């Protein structure tokens, strides 16, 4: 049973403004949301997949905002790199046709939040220029995550005459621990702050993030032992924070050009001589084993994506995503 995999069932509610050509394609569940979190360990291809999804959604005429959670505005950004930039802008700007981009920073969100609650200009200015408050917000409990959360909420709220300003917000999420701190933030803070402006903002954010018709987290992983284990742990963690999960994107499935007879003939030779390419002979088998293990361990939707050359990777991945079909569930023949 693939409980979360019914394609298109969230369609009508997901995007009030509507967009052309979205019915019936397998990947609708991926882009037909207001906010999609791309999660996973470092080095699995999260950023490039975020960029490819943005490209794909823009091709379907969605107004897309791509973001990443940053620590520092000067950070090197692999996501920005895929758009030919060294870093994403501090506030949304067009970074590619149909695509806007910005970095989610604790500081930016905290400022937005203070401006919205301290309606008095004097108070807001006093707060923002207060070294003491800045230090508190920089080190304090969950304040950094709160800033990121509020900045995201601001973009979710933004509307224009014909619907949401950003029909799809894609977030390249940082390492696992940070991801779970962010998705777990509302529950944690609401226990401490059941009332007040922060609580209101958190509840509003929850209405987006905890609604499977509006939000989904996808876990990016690789067809190898350890990444599969980590992917399963992350899925479990996301469930605990009530973040709806779309499924798994299994990236970099190696090609297997060899027939069984060729493999049988080659194996003794490459092993005996430790020839270069030996690992390439074994990789497809190991990858296949990892895919099967993941398939058996979770009922969720799984997409597999091929290993592709680095040149033109974003477009090639967008094409691959466009054509991708979910892996059959484990009961299927």
């Amino acid at each position, binding site marked *: 049973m693939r409980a979360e995999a019914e394609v298109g069932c969230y369609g009508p509610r997901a995007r009030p403004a509507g967009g052309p050509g979205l019915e019936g394609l397998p990947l609708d569940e991926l882009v037909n949301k207001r906010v999609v979190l791309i999660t996973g*360990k*470092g*080095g699995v291809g999260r950023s490039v997949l975020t960029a490819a999804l943005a490209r794909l959604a823009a091709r379907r005429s969605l107004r897309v905002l791509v973001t990443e959670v940053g*620590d520092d505005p000067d950070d*090197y950004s*692999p996501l920005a790199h895929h758009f030919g930039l060294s870093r994403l802008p501090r506030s949304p700007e067009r970074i590619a046709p149909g695509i806007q981009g910005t970095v989610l920073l604790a500081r930016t969100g905290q400022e937005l*939040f*203070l401006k919205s*609650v*301290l309606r008095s200009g004097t*108070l807001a200015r*006093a*707060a923002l220029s*207060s070294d*003491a*408050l800045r*230090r*508190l917000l*920089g*080190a*304090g*409990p*969950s304040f*950094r995550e709160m800033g990121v959360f509020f900045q995201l909420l601001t973009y979710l709220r933004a509307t224009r005459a014909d619907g949401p300003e950003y029909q799809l917000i894609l977030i390249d999420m*940082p*390492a*696992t*621990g*940070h991801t779970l*701190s962010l998705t777990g933030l509302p529950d944690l803070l609401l226990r*401490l*702050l059941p*009332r*007040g*402006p*922060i*609580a209101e903002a958190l509840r509003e954010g929850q209405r987006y993030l905890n609604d499977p018709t509006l939000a989904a987290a996808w876990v990016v992983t690789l067809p*190898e*032992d*350890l990444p599969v*284990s*980590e992917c399963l742990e992350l899925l479990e963690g996301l469930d605990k924070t009530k973040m709806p999960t779309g499924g798994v994107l299994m990236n970099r499935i190696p090609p297997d*050009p*060899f*027939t069984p007879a*060729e*493999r049988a*003939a*080659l194996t003794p*030779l*490459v092993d005996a*001589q*430790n*020839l*270069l*390419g030996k*690992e*390439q002979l*074994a990789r497809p088998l*190991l990858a296949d084993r990892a895919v099967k293990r993941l398939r058996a361990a979770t009922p969720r939707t799984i997409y597999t994506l091929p290993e592709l050359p680095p040149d033109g990777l974003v477009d090639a991945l967008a094409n691959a995503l466009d054509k991708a079909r979910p892996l059959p569930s484990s009961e299927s023949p």
Partner: protein
Amino acid sequence: MADATTTAEKVGSLLRTKRIIVCCGAGGVGKTTTAAALSLAAARAGRRVLVLTIDPSRRLAETLGVSRNPPEPVEVPRDRQAAAGISPPASLHAWMLDPKLVADDAVRRLTKSKEDAERVIGNRIYQQISGMVAGMHEYTAMEALYTLVNGGKYDLVVLDTPPSRHALDFLEAPRRLSRLVDSRALSHFLPRSDSMVARAASKVLQKILGAVFGDEFASEFIGFLMTFSSIFQELNVDVNTMRTFLSGPDVAFLLVTSPQPATLTEAHFFQDKTRELGLPFRGFVLNRSRARNVERRLPDAATDAAGGGPELASGLTKLRALAESELHLAKKDLALLHELEGRAGQQATALALPELPQGAGEMATLLEVADVLAAS
């Protein structure tokens, strides 16, 4: 990879002589594996070693046969040590520590009375946030390190720093914590009785806190800060003490990294930062490097197919194409290693570790890495 131009101490020598090795690195580069392999290598070389990790993977705990989050370091079962070639008096302990336990412990030590300590630990706000305060994990790791090294039970402690996006977070996060408590920053939030100006300023801040958090939580929060301010002052001292302690000659900082576009930028920042903080940067460990593949022979359809059937010939042609792209990657990784070597200079070393083979038992893999480290 040997490099004749540098006189810097190799990793194999560092793990035999230093008392502390700190493994820094962004998440996902294999830092925990490297720390575990370094520890194994040092214990195999006859030392009493402790590996200290935060937020560890289930898998490493299983491999070493120790529990996660015990209250104190646990010895790796003797049979596993023996199987890994560690024999007394050498030993390997591991502590996959729970930041909450260490934080509580620190509070107990830093508070003046037992009652104070229990009041703090019992505080509702503290209970919710102590694990989530930015810098707390990093602080607790340093705290544990400090205590354990000074305890004299180990010849070497290997610290696997907490997972983060940046290698530098480990150095920066405790500083954020200490910047908060340092100076009079906190006192601005507390009711004041000194000058009129200070009173007015503190009133404004309290009003802001009230508007942001709601009046009810704001007063509770201010109460929390008051309870903590004395502890924070102590902690501030400790952050500085620990920085001094980590700049000693017995300490080596290693940056664990992997071949990625950002690797060189990261390496550069890390070196600058450690220099700025006066910390002994001693080397780069480039994980998952395919650099050594340049030494391997390419399959050759013409000669290797001799005496084989048609499958061998067609298979070799396909393998050759794959092997050529492997060679291309290997050359790129080798160039990266050379750049890191150049950057490491005279004080530090650069070492490439191969991609870990899949499918082998985890312990066998760790031992393989340990051998490469020890032989470097």
